[in-house]
C-alpha cells in the first residue's frame, strides 16, 4: 500500500472523473484537475466565488461548480479549457445543483424548493418543474440514465413524477399513499421505484415504472420508522434500516421480508468475527503479525492500533439517545451493499463506533468492526468485496472476508481522514481530511494473497 503526497482541498470537494482518468479538487474558488496516474495538474480553473459543490458530468468532459451563496453555477470543459458556461439563478436563489445523466443538462433546485430549473447546454433552453418536494431524497435518476423520478407536493398530497431524461417529457404522474414522503430510489435495473414515508410512519411503497403500486410494506406502527433505504446492486434485495435498530431485507419477487438483521448490544453469534481495534502507544512488538506494520514500518509518532479478535460474547458500547430530542441518535442510518451484492455493511447510530457486515448469501452476521472512535464514513470497493472505513483519525481501516487491517496514513502533520472515496477501478482510494487529501494505492499483488 502506497500513499501519495498531500494536496489541499476545501469543503471536501474532490472527485475522480467517471472514466477514472482525472481527479478534480476544489481549493477555495479554484478548481484543479489532475491526472490520476501522475497527479500532475492538467487544468486550473478559477471560479467567481468559493465553490460549494462540484461534480463531473457522466462523460467526464465537463465539471460543474456551484456557488450556492451567489446562486451561480459555472461549468468547465476539460477538452476546451477556454470554453465556459455560467448559469445565474438570480434572486430566486440556489440550494442544489446536479448534472442530468446525459451530462448536457443541469438541474438546479431553487431556494424554498420553488422549482427545479433544467438548463440545457446544447440549446441554452430552460425549463421548469414546479412543486418539487423538499425532502431527504426528492430526485433520483435511474441507473441507465433514462428516467428521473421527482417527489412533488401539491395540495398537501405527495406525488411522484417520472420524467424521460432525454427530452424531459413527463412520462407518469401519480399520487403516492404516503403521509409525508421522505425519499425515493430507483432499483438498479430501473424498473421499480421505492418510496418511503417520513420517520413518523413505517411505510415503504414499491411502484412500477408505469406508476402501478406493486407492494406496500410496513413493519410496525406507532413508532419512529424508516431511517434509510438501499437497493442491492443486483436489484434483488431492498434493505430498510429503521429506528428500531433493525435492518429488514425485502425480496424482489413477493416484496416480502426475507429476514431482519438485529444489532444487539451483546453479540453471542459465534459464527461472526468480532474485530476490536486496540490502540497502543508503544513500539511494534515482534509478535505483531499484521502485515502493514512490517511493510510500512510506521513507528513514527502516532499511536499504533491493530485489530484483535474477540471471543464470542462481546459487549458493544451503546450510547443511549436523548428521547426528547428530534432525530434521536438511534437506528440504522447507513446501509451499503458490496458491489457483488454479497455483503451488506450497516451502522447503527447508537453504536457509532461499530460497523456490521452481513453475508447476504447466508443471511447472517459475518463480521463486526469495533473501532475506538465513531465511524465517519465507510464505502465498498467498486470491484471487490472490500470495505474501507475511517473514523476521523490518521488511520484507514480495511475489511475483506479474509481479515481486517488498520493502516496508518503516513503524512506529515497527520491527515485526519474524515471521508473517503474509492477510485472506480478499486485500485486506489481518496482520503479526505478537513483541508487536505491524499491518495492511497492498493497493492494489487498484496490483495491477491
Amino acid at each position: 500500500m502506497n500513499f501519495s503526497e498531500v494536496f489541499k482541498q476545501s469543503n471536501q470537494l474532490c472527485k475522480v472523473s467517471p472514466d477514472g482518468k482525472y481527479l478534480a479538487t476544489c481549493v477555495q474558488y479554484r478548481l484543479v484537475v489532475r491526472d490520476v496516474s501522475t497527479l500532475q495538474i492538467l487544468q486550473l480553473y478559477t471560479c467567481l466565488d468559493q465553490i460549494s459543490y462540484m461534480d463531473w458530468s457522466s462523460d467526464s468532459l465537463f465539471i460543474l461548480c456551484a456557488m450556492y451563496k451567489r446562486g451561480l453555477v459555472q461549468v468547465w470543459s476539460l477538452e476546451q479549457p477556454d470554453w465556459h458556461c455560467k448559469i445565474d439563478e438570480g434572486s430566486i436563489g440556489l440550494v442544489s445543483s446536479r448534472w442530468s445523466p446525459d451530462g448536457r443538462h443541469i438541474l438546479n433546485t431553487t431556494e424554498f424548493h420553488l422549482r427545479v430549473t433544467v438548463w440545457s447546454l446544447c440549446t441554452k433552453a430552460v425549463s421548469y418543474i414546479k412543486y418539487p418536494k423538499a425532502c431527504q431524497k426528492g430526485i433520483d435518476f435511474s441507473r441507465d440514465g433514462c428516467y428521473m423520478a421527482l417527489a412533488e407536493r401539491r395540495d398537501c398530497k405527495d406525488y411522484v413524477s417520472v420524467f424521460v431524461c432525454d427530452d424531459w417529457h413527463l412520462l407518469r404522474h401519480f399520487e403516492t399513499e404516503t403521509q409525508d414522503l421522505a425519499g425515493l430510489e430507483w432499483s438498479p435495473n430501473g424498473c421499480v421505484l421505492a418510496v418511503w414515508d417520513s420517520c413518523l410512519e413505517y411505510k415503504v411503497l414499491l411502484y412500477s415504472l408505469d406508476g402501478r403500486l406493486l407492494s406496500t410494506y410496513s413493519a410496525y406502527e406507532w413508532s419512529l420508522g424508516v431511517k434509510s433505504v438501499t437497493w442491492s446492486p443486483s436489484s434483488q434485495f431492498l434493505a430498510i434500516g429503521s429506528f428500531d435498530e433493525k435492518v429488514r431485507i425485502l425480496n424482489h419477487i413477493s416484496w416480502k421480508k426475507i429476514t431482519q438483521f438485529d444489532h444487539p448490544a451483546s453479540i453471542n453469534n459465534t459464527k461472526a468475527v468480532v474485530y476490536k481495534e486496540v490502540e497502543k502507544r508503544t513500539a511494534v512488538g515482534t509478535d505483531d503479525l499484521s502485515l502493514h506494520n512490517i511493510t510500512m514500518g510506521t513507528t513514527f509518532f502516532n499511536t499504533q492500533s491493530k485489530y484483535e479478535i474477540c471471543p464470542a460474547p462481546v459487549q458493544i458500547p451503546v450510547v443511549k439517545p436523548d428521547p426528547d430530542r428530534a432525530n434521536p441518535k438511534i437506528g440504522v442510518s447507513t446501509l451499503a451493499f458490496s458491489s457483488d451484492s454479497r455483503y451488506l455493511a450497516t451502522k447503527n447510530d447508537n453504536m457509532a463506533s461499530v460497523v456490521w457486515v452481513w453475508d447476504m448469501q447466508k443471511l447472517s452476521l459475518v463480521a463486526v468492526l469495533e473501532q475506538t472512535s465513531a465511524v465517519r464514513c465507510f464505502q465498498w470497493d467498486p470491484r471487490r468485496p472490500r470495505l474501507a472505513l475511517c473514523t476521523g483519525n490518521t488511520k484507514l481501516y480495511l475489511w475483506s472476508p479474509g481479515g481486517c487491517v488498520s493502516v496508518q496514513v503516513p503524512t506529515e502533520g497527520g491527515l485526519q481522514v474524515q471521508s473517503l472515496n474509492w477510485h472506480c477501478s478499486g485500485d486506489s482510494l481518496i482520503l479526505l481530511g478537513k483541508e487536505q487529501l491524499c491518495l492511497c494505492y492498493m497493492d494489487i499483488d498484496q490483495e491477491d494473497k
Partner: protein
Amino acid sequence: MEEWWTTVPIGTSLGNYEISSISHVTMSPSRQNNLVSTHSSFPLSKSSYNVISAFCTEDNIPQCISYINQELDSLGLSSTCIEASSAGGAGLNTVPALNALYELMQIHRRDMSTLEELEKERLKKSNTLDHIQMNNSRLKDQLELSIREKSGLHETERQLQLRIKTLQSCLKTEKDEVQKLQSIIAGRASQSSHDAKRKEREAAKLKERLSQLLVDRRDKKLAIDVLNCVGRSDGKRSHWKTAKATVGHEGEMYKSLLNDYEASQRSLMLENAELKKVLQRMKKEMMHILSPHQPSPRGAAADDSRDQANSDGEETAGDSSRETLDQSCEHAREQLANSIRQQWRKLRKHMEKLDSQASQVQSQLEPQQEVIPREAHEDEMERMRREVQQCKEFIQAQQQLLQQQLNTSFDDETAALLNDCYTLEEKERLKEEWRLFEEQKRNFERERKNFTEAAIRLGREKRAFEEDRASLLKNQFLNMTPFTDRRRCSSSDGQSALSIRSEPETRMSSTKSQPVKSSTSTPNSSQSAVVPSTAELYRTLRLIPDSSTSRHSNQGRWQESSSIEDGDVRVKSKNRVRCGDFSVFSLGEDENSLTS
C-alpha cells in the same frame, strides 16, 4: 352376688354389708357420701336396737307384731305372717318370723342391687351429660368464632366492595379522562394537520406568488451564458416534442418493463427448473432408498397391507408425475407434491424407526462409542495445535527474515553514511574498553599488594609457629624425663595465657596423624572424647585443674596433680591469685567429697 349370697349364711350378713360397703367405697369415691349416709343408718339402727326405748319393747310385742304384719302385708308378703308363739307372750313363732326376715332381706338385697345399678346408670348418664355439655360448649365456642369470622368476612367484603366501587369510579373517571385526552389529541391532531395543511397551502401560494413575481419582473440575472453550445452526448440532434415522441417514450417504457419482466421470468423459470430437477432427483433417491428396505419392515409391521396399497398408489403416481414433470402442468404438480409428501412421510417413519433402533443400540454400546470419538477428537485437536504452533514459528521466522532483509537493504543504502558512525562508535567502544582495562589493572595491583601483605603475615606466623613447635618439642622432651615437675613448672612459668590458648593449634600441627583429636575445637571436649595418653593427660591437667572427669578417672595420680596445682598457684601473677585460691578451695572441697 345373688348366688354368692345364697351360699353365705345369714349370720354373716352384717359383715357382708361391711364388705360390700367397702367395695362400694373402692368402686367409686363419688358415691362415698351416699354410702356414708346409708352406712351411718346401720349403726344407728343397731344402736337403736340396743336402746330400750325402741320400736319394740316387752310391753308392745303384739302391737309390733301386728304392725309388722301389716307392713309385711303392704309389702306383699302376706303369706308369711309372724305370729306370736304365745298370745301375749314375748316369744315369737320363729319360722314365719325368719321367713319374713329372709324375705325382707331378699327384698333389701334386690333393692340394693337395683340401687347400685341405678347409681351406675346415673354415673354413666352424668358422664355422658358432662361430655355432651363440654361438646356443647365447644360447639358454642365454635359457633361464636364462626359468627365472628363471618362478621369479619362480611366487613372485609364490604370494604372490598367499597374499594371496588371507588376503583370503578376511578376507572370510569380515568376512562373519561383518557377519552377526553384522546378526543383532545384527535382534536389537536386534526387541528395541527389542518394548520399544517393551511400553512402548506399558504406556503404553496406564497411560492406561486414568488415565482410569479420573479417571472413577472423578468429577472435579468436569470440567465445562461454559454460560449458555444455543445453537442448532445449521443451525438444526435435534439428533436421536438411531438405526439410521436410521447408514444415513443411510452413504448420505450413498456419495452424496458417488458424486458425486465421477461428477464425476471426467465430467471424464475431457470430457478423453477433447477428446483424441479432437484425435486425429481430427491424423489428418485427417496424411492431408491425406500424400495430395498420395504420388504424387511413390511414383514414385521402389522399394517403392511395398507402400506402396500399406499406404496402401490405412490409408485403409480410417481411414474405419472415423472412423465408429466416436464410439462409442468397444474395437475401434474399436484400429483408430484402429493407423492413427495407421501414418500416423505414414509421416509420419516423409517427414520424414526431407525432412530429408535439406533438409540437402543447406542444405549447398549454407549461407553465404548462415547470414548473412542473423544480420543480421536483430542488427538486431532493436539495435532492441529501442533500445526498452529509450527505455523506460528514459521511466521515468526519469516518475519525476522523480512526484518533482517529490510535492515540490510537499509544498510546498503546508507552504508557510506554509516561508516563514519561506525568508526565513531568503535572509538567510543574502545575508550570504554580501555577504561575498563585500567580499572581492572588497578584492581589487580591492589590484589597483588594484598597478596604480598598476606605472604608477609604468613611468614611471620610461620616463624611464630616454628618457635611454638620448638618449645613444644622441648616441653615434651622434658616431660618425658624423670625430673618432670620442676622442668615443667619452669616451662609453664614462661608461657603466658595466650600461649596456653594456642596449645591446641600446636598440638594439632604436631599430631597430624590423629585427625579425630585435632578436629575437636576445645581441649576439654577432646579430652572427654578420647582416652588420653599420659603426656596429654599431664598437659590437660595443667590446663584445667578442676576437670571432674580427670579427677574421677585418675584418682591415683591425684597427689601429683595437686602438687602441680600448688606450683601453679604459687608462680602465677597477682591477679590470678584469687582464681588460684578458688581452685585450691574447690580442690580441697572435692578432696573432701572424695574422701567422705
